[in-house]
């Protein structure tokens, strides 16, 4: 299982890009941290989620 924003999901083995494609996130508005470190945007296609990973996806909204 992979923890995504606190929820356990059965997505080990998928890449970040493959997982994001199953969600409503706008790729231009997000930042993804995996186990406390940023996942480079250029690495979404090749970063494979592993059993026990913890993912934080921050989706920004406008205003400031």
């Amino acid at each position, binding site marked *: 299982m992979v923890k995504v924003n606190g929820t356990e999901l059965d997505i080990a083995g998928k890449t970040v890009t493959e997982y994001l494609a199953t969600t409503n996130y706008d790729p231009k508005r997000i930042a993804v*941290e995996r186990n406390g470190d940023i996942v480079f945007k250029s690495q979404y296609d090749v970063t494979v989620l592993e059993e026990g990973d913890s993912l934080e996806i*921050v989706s*920004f*909204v*406008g205003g*400031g």
Partner: protein
Amino acid sequence: MDALVARHGTELQRRFSEATVAVCGLGGLGSNIAIALARVGIGKLLLIDFDKVDITNLHRQQYKASQIGRYKTDALAENLFEIAPYTEIKTVTARLSEDNLTTLLSDADIICEAFDNAEAKAMLVNGVLEQLPGCFLVAASGMAGMDNPNTIKTRKIGKRFYLCGDEVSDVADTIGLVAPRVMLCAAHQAQTVLQILAGEYEV
């Protein structure tokens, strides 16, 4: 400066006065963050914005009617000098991008993301975390509208990435931005900067 040492203690004030903090975007968040940090005695503030003061900014941003039409960098530097002349101010009147952020932000110990556009926020956050591994980043998302003030919070997302706001109130879905709620979020960001400088890394 002696008055600040008396309030904060020698060690804490040393950390504040040796710090360089970048404020990216000088709107409702950034202008309030900068004023709070200057009052506390942060040594050097790096203020970055490309825009000019507009009449529609005055309801929430720390400018005066007499400053309409001036670059926000210049107007805010002037206001900060009146409030806290012991703060060193460096201004950059430019639009931050993936291509220039390393050059413009490399001196900063802590970077505050204070843009209003969601895609610009994401660009800066990804850019800083990818390109400036020595920096802490304090970003904001979700402070629009009239919701309860207690929904504004701070979370530590990664090892050096903090996020303030309610994370959901998009300006496009609300009546817009009101001064107190934006100030609350700005205060969260400024206080998080101080916590980091004090060595209190957990929220």
